[in-house]
């Protein structure tokens, strides 16, 4: 993994991010559980939501992430309009001293699917305001292209709805997005287990963001380690250049030098 970080760097907006596995803090059972998962994952970026301060809370998520040397990526989770998302992003920039934002603008609170119209609007405003915007979007290649055109630093298409664990529902669309994107494609949402993360990387994604699959697993630390291995395996397989899919077989053993079948003429 260390070699890969140096020979195959993961760059976002010119910054070497490090790990191709990003961890979402959503769904964490406790700070301790999150800390264990973060260490096992090797993640160098973790998302946080922006919420009202609870005066009764003693713990600090910010202190935990800073202590682990992990970059905070604030998320506009829960926003339904571009205006809300823009305000939330600006609050986050002030709170965490970062220009980076994972932009999430959802259409309804049942499917949590992104509202592409509000999303592109918010992205444009935030890019103009100097943010490094990483938008969570649907798997529509047209919307992904629009987001890149307005200046987003990456695109983050979903595999399936947030927290659903349904994996990558439309691998073809993810491939289409990857083929056309000039910015990193980070598969975000719906990953359920390690093979989903591996597939995302094999499809050509530059990185993967996982939250529920780790935080809500029976053993988050073990799952985080599995995700780390899966992302590394998928990336290596992609770079190794897989064989094509064939309609029929291609023998892997040459027939040259075969012993003649019994009863045939020798020579």
């Amino acid at each position, binding site marked *: 993994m260390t070699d890969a970080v140096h020979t195959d760097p993961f760059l976002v907006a010119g910054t070497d991010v490090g790990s191709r596995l990003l961890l979402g803090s*959503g769904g964490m059972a406790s700070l301790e559980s999150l800390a264990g998962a973060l260490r096992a994952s090797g993640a160098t970026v973790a998302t946080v939501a922006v919420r009202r301060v609870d005066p009764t809370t003693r713990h600090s998520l910010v202190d935990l992430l800073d202590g682990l040397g992990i970059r905070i990526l604030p998320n506009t989770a829960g926003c339904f309009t571009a205006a809300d998302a823009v305000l939330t992003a600006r609050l986050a920039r002030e709170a965490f001293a970062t220009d980076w934002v994972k932009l999430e603008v959802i259409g309804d609170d049942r499917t949590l699917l992104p509202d592409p119209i509000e999303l592109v609007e918010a992205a444009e405003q935030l890019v103009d305001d100097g943010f490094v915007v990483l938008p969570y979007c649907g798997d529509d290649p047209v919307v992904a292209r629009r987001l890149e055109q307005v200046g987003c630093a990456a695109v983050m298409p979903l595999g399936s709805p947030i927290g659903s664990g349904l994996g990558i529902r439309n691998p073809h669309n993810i491939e289409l997005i990857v083929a056309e994107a000039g910015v990193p494609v980070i598969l975000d949402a719906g990953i359920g287990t390690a093979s989903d993360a591996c597939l995302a990387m094999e499809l050509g994604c530059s990185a993967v963001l996982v939250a529920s699959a780790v935080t809500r697993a029976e053993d988050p630390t073990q799952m985080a380690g599995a995700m780390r291995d899966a992302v590394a395996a998928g990336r290596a397989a992609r770079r190794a250049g897989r064989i094509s899919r064939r309609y029929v077989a291609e023998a892997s053993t040459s027939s040259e030098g075969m012993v003649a079948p019994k009863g045939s003429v020798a020579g």
Partner: protein
Amino acid sequence: MVSGGGTTVNGTPHQVTPGTTVADLVAGWCPSPRGVAVAVNGEVVPRSTWDTTPVAMGDAVEIVTAAAGG
């Protein structure tokens, strides 16, 4: 929304004495100002101006920080 034009902090009514600044409010609300941001009436108040920004009667103040999510 609170009727009567009272000040609110994070959606709940909050009495503010005249001369209270944003910095005063944050100090009363948060164990530490680290990782905290403030908006008054929907506009972000930069940290550098907390000490000099008064909280007026009827202001809607939001004090936020990081929470699990995303």
